[in-house]
């Protein structure tokens, strides 16, 4: 279980970091989302992974650490709000700046880019 968990967190973090380094706001937003998923999983595991552990006293033989669960819940809520904000901001930036690059300017080789319908920009 630990190995699968570690690989999941690692791959998510890798994808998140990679996408955050991209030039367009859409991929950066997706990257931030992935990073926050990775963080949530990571926080959850900080109380050690256990099967069939109850979080409430007196309910079972074995117990799971309830604190990371609370932390993860808080982190999910905050992360969700932040992602919502950054999505709106990205749309606003697209409208204000006229393109969806993080820098706000077209890259120097923008004329080589191809539009989705196949025309040159």
């Amino acid at each position, binding site marked *: 279980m630990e190995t699968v968990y570690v690989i999941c967190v690692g791959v998510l973090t890798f994808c998140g970091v990679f996408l955050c380094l991209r030039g367009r706001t859409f991929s950066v937003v997706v990257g*931030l989302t992935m990073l*926050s998923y990775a963080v949530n999983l990571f926080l959850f*595991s900080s109380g050690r992974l256990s099967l069939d552990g109850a979080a409430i006293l007196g309910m079972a033989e074995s117990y799971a650490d309830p604190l990371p669960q609370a932390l993860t819940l808080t982190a999910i809520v905050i992360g969700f709000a932040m992602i919502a*904000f950054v999505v709106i901001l990205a749309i606003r930036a697209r409208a*204000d700046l006229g393109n969806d690059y*993080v820098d706000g300017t077209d890259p120097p080789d923008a004329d080589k880019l191809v539009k989705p319908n196949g025309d040159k920009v």
Partner: protein
Amino acid sequence: MTVHLPILPILIPMLGGLLMLLPPFAGAKRYLHRRVAALVLMLAQLACSIILMQMVVENGAIMYAVGDWQPPYGIILYADKLSVMLVALGSLLGLGITLYSFGGSDREGKYFHPLVQFQLLGIYGAFLTNDLFNLFVFFEVLLIASYTLLIHGGGKHKTAANVHYVILNLIGSSLFLFALGTLYGVTGTLNIADMALRIPELSQSQALIAQAGGSLMLIVFGLKSAMLPLHFWLPQTYAAASAPVAALFAIMTKVGVYCIFRVYTVVFGEQAGELADMIVPWVWPLAIATVVFGTIGALASPNLRTLAGNLVIVSVGTLLIAFALRTPEASAAAFLYLIHSTLVTAALFLIADMIAQQRGRAIDYFVVARKIKQQALLGVLFIVVAMAAAGLPPFSGFLGKLVILQSATDSDHRIWVWSVILIPSLFTIIALSRAGTTLFWRNTPSHDAAESAGVSRWQIGGAVLLLMASPTLALFGAHVIEYTNAAAAQLHDIQYLLEVMNLDGDSK
């Protein structure tokens, strides 16, 4: 009632900010109601923080357990001399910028005053909390308020700057959570005092993991405080923000510096066994580089607000140098310099905005433009703020730098500290005097300045309130130094913290 005093600086802006969203205050036309409410709230916060400060001075540090869950389990607020001093500083700054915004910048959007209150809520919370996860939550509160404040009023520059600022800080928040998870995984606690107890007892392999967590946290605090190489966002962001917002942001970098002082003195301080002072070898060169690059940036700035932003970086570097000396005396000097630099850079942003209002399309760029209308008034304000920022006597910048220089007693450090503080000071003077001569003396001969409106009294009032702090600090220097010395001694005395928290090193 007095038992609950430590949580009042958090509750007042929270409830006040929420109330300002409700009908008697909401709406574009009811801005006068909002102004009165904002003024009352700011005065209440200032009064509350001063009473809290008095209590802390008389009775020692106060531990407040939210919901009465005792440490190490509950969420703990901890008001010691350092944190109440910073809360008072924040409320004074908030009052100054609220007054300034009455001049008209609060009407650019409907939610200026509520957002300022939420921002202050996050700032006070970050200063008062003694729980790392709670610190994260308050960071997010102050960040989301700052995201919206930065874009307040709208405009292309603000949007572009905001995109960078938001993305960087979201990545920073993710790193913060990774660091928290790592530290919780090895120590099993999030209470700063409790963590200080457990760090020295870690086995060698656990200590390595804790070191990774602690170093990740330095990246987060470095990003918040604009430590090199994480400072690139700052000049652009501060130059894009509207003046009162930029002035309020002057304390945000100091939140990062405060967290570095708190976490790396208490948790990874000299008592932390293998991990004692683990980040100091990193902070030394970075702090020096921060000062140097901030100074170069100040010399290269094309306008006054970017110059002010670069001076913020210089002040952060100076504070980090004082941190790297790791003595209570140096910390005390840093706290004095922190009060000074926060208020003076905030005043500089406000004065830059007033100058920009009267120069037409040239705004605050260093180019030949028409004459400023209220040249005498703004000129006097500018020279006072420039002298204070550059560290010339008789203002507080001189005093702040002097005590930092004096605190560097070790001869190896002394060469570095003295040269890194004094030489950039000279260049700051050059940059500021060049700015002043261009802004005030190089005018186009043909135009007279009659057409631009004078600055409002609220704006002058707000800027003067912040600016007056500088001579006041210098005048009552002995008392302030006495206070910061006591605050630094309290910060470095981990045993005292554990006693206040009722945590005992042996009973585990």
